[in-house]
């Protein structure tokens, strides 16, 4: 049997079976988060390099915690302290880290395609933890896991994504993932953030400019983080965004009564989401965070324990007792 995954760079090239496999592999790790003793020795002696060329707190902590719960050690490169500031090229930085012999790279970068570029230059698995406005595959997987747990399946679900779709790698990965399961995806936001070209990403995507209309029949409502620097007059004032696109309790009532609310974080209360919605029983934001650990443990396990240098040959390879 050939290897299932060498890297995790994007959702777009994966098929349904591969996605389902990864989600299924996350299930045992979901249970694991409830164990009193959250430490495995599975990846003992392995090292995961966290190469974050763009600032990140939650994703870095999530990957770091996932790696250490599997027993792996961590190498940490942070944007602020990075020698990139001193003028070193991306590839030189990566090759320097690789010379310290990590077993996998987790990489975030502000340029789309950076993780793929690196994956062609190194001999170890690369996990994309967000590249520019391209993709954030582990976020889409943890979202899908949360949705599948609540709705029972992904097939044909109605999801509404609200906000700055154009610049959101979270939205892009989610659109690619859910569309493979025949989801009906509604994109909603200010016209400049929801251009017509987004409809080309996948079938069954519709753009709706009025939030009230976009929420009708939604089983999943995903509010995206709004980068405040993108809100300025005269293009779009923050007050105007709040007035038109904030997810409020009244608006949420237009979705299905059992609709779930997701947000990739960090959440700005009072901007894209009303605190009453963020704290409501329909909000699964914290479950997303816990599922993020499970998904990342599953990915690290899959890529490191199932990776290239692993071979058959021990005494009890056929039947291990």
């Amino acid at each position, binding site marked *: 049997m050939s290897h299932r995954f060498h890297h995790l760079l994007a959702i777009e090239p994966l098929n349904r079976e591969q996605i389902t496999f990864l989600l299924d592999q996350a299930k*045992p790790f979901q249970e694991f988060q409830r164990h009193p003793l959250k430490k495995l020795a599975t990846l003992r002696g392995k090292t995961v390099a966290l190469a974050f060329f763009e600032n990140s707190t939650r994703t870095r902590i999530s990957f770091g915690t996932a790696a250490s719960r599997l027993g792996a050690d961590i190498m940490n490169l942070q944007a602020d302290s990075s020698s990139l500031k001193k003028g070193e090229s991306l590839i030189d930085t990566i090759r320097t880290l690789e010379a310290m012999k990590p077993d996998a790279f987790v990489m975030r970068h502000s340029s789309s395609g950076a993780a793929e570029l690196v994956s062609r230059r190194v001999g170890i698995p690369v996990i994309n933890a967000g590249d520019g406005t391209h993709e954030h595959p582990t976020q889409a997987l943890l979202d899908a896991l949360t949705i599948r747990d609540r709705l029972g399946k992904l097939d044909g679900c109605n999801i509404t994504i609200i906000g700055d779709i154009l610049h959101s790698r979270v939205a892009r990965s989610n659109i690619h993932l859910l569309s493979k399961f025949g989801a009906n995806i509604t994109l909603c936001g200010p016209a400049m953030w929801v251009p017509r070209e987004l409809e080309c990403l996948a079938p069954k995507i519709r753009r709706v400019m009025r939030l009230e209309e976009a929420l009708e029949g939604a089983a999943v409502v995903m509010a995206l983080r709004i980068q405040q620097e993108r809100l300025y007059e005269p293009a779009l004032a923050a007050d105007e965004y709040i007035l038109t696109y904030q997810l409020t309790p009244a608006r949420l009532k237009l979705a299905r009564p059992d609709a779930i609310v997701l947000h990739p974080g960090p959440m700005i209360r009072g901007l894209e989401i009303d605190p009453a919605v963020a704290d409501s029983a329909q909000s699964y934001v914290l479950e997303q965070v816990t599922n993020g650990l499970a998904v990342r443990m599953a990915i690290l396990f899959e890529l490191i324990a199932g990776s290239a240098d692993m071979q*058959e040959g021990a*005494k009890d390879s056929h039947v*291990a*007792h």
Partner: protein
Amino acid sequence: MRIIEKRQLMSADEIRRTLERLAHEIVEKTGGAKDLALIGVRRRGIPLSERLARTIRTSSKAEVPVGTLDITLYRDDLSTVAPQPVVQSSEISFAVDDRDLLLVDDVLYTGRTVRAAMNGLFDLGRPRRIRLCVLIDRGHRELPIEASFIGRAVETTDTEIIEVRLAEIDHEERVMLMDRVD
């Protein structure tokens, strides 16, 4: 390399009678099955633990919960024998603290699976006691581990393989001795 069948070690009827005897031995040596819980090791330990628990419940009138354990994450040989490891769920819905646990597996060989299973159980709490019940003990231990209850001890060579086939998983019921030939 081919794998050939050398001979049958147990028939369906022999498996049934062996499990019955094991269940009675377990009850006898446990002295009240009040805190007893069975843990089946994936995969074939699971149907075996369920069958044993049914018999133990009838004779001891105790509840005897059954859990399942997947040891993939606890193996020490991930880098050598498992090119495509797949993690399965462990389902243990009761607290293991202070429980009298009985691990159930089909074959005891190197002892490494049992070592991994015990590590998995310790992550869940502190059992009062862990014992081991296997259908077949085929020898060749690599760790100081022995079973408390053994269905049948079989002498084997290094190249031989024990195949336990159970109705719940394999749709047939027998134990066979296989061998690898070049």
